[in-house]
């Protein structure tokens, strides 16, 4: 019905957060607040948040197509066919609260796993680089 809208709201919030973090990182590098060692590589938080925005916006885009295919999203107001009656709207809100929230949580949790795995690989590479140096 409209389960993907929960992920869309999260995507907007993460996109804003990414922009803020990016700005702070840029300020930190221009004022030399970060001491960079040539052998140590560290993926910035904005890049990691970029992965999450890609996951969320990408998923929302593909689910939007699926909903359009099933006639649940239409190109005219109110855009969601579930908003045509009170009963259908209540059902839609229930679906958003259950399926939609679960989708957003699972995608975010999976992103967390990706970030964790990336950090482990990065740490290993940095240790090897330090040993060689």
């Amino acid at each position, binding site marked *: 019905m409209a389960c993907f809208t929960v992920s869309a709201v999260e995507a907007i919030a993460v996109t804003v957060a990414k922009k803020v973090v990016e700005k702070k990182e840029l300020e930190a590098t221009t004022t030399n607040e970060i001491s960079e060692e040539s052998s140590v590589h560290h993926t910035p938080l904005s890049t990691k948040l970029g*992965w999450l925005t890609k996951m969320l916006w990408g*998923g929302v885009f593909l689910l939007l197509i699926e909903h359009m295919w099933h006639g649940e999203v239409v190109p005219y107001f109110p855009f969601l066919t579930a908003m045509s009656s009170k009963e259908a709207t209540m059902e839609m809100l229930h679906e958003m609260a259950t399926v939609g929230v679960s989708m957003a949580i699972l995608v975010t949790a999976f992103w967390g796993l990706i970030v964790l795995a990336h950090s482990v690989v990065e740490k290993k590479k940095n240790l090897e680089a330090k040993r060689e140096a």
Partner: protein
Amino acid sequence: MCLIITACAAAITAALYFTKYSDEKYNLLMLVLMYLSASLMWSVDGIFSVIGGESFFDMSANDALLGLLVVVAGAALWAVTLIINKVKKQA
């Protein structure tokens, strides 16, 4: 079928990304993450379908067609972002 096709697309693009096309200029990670995320979302939908007494997979031809459309739409979006990035770099 839509979930299966999208999951396969995610696996294929991930294999391409990790073996050959990890260069930023291809931006293939975007496509991998997009298909992966949609697969996860449809898995949740499938779990709730099972809870509601329906089957996890929809094996109809209509859903298979939707799966193909989704993969093509994802690839089209990826191609558009590639073109935009290229134009931005040239400007």
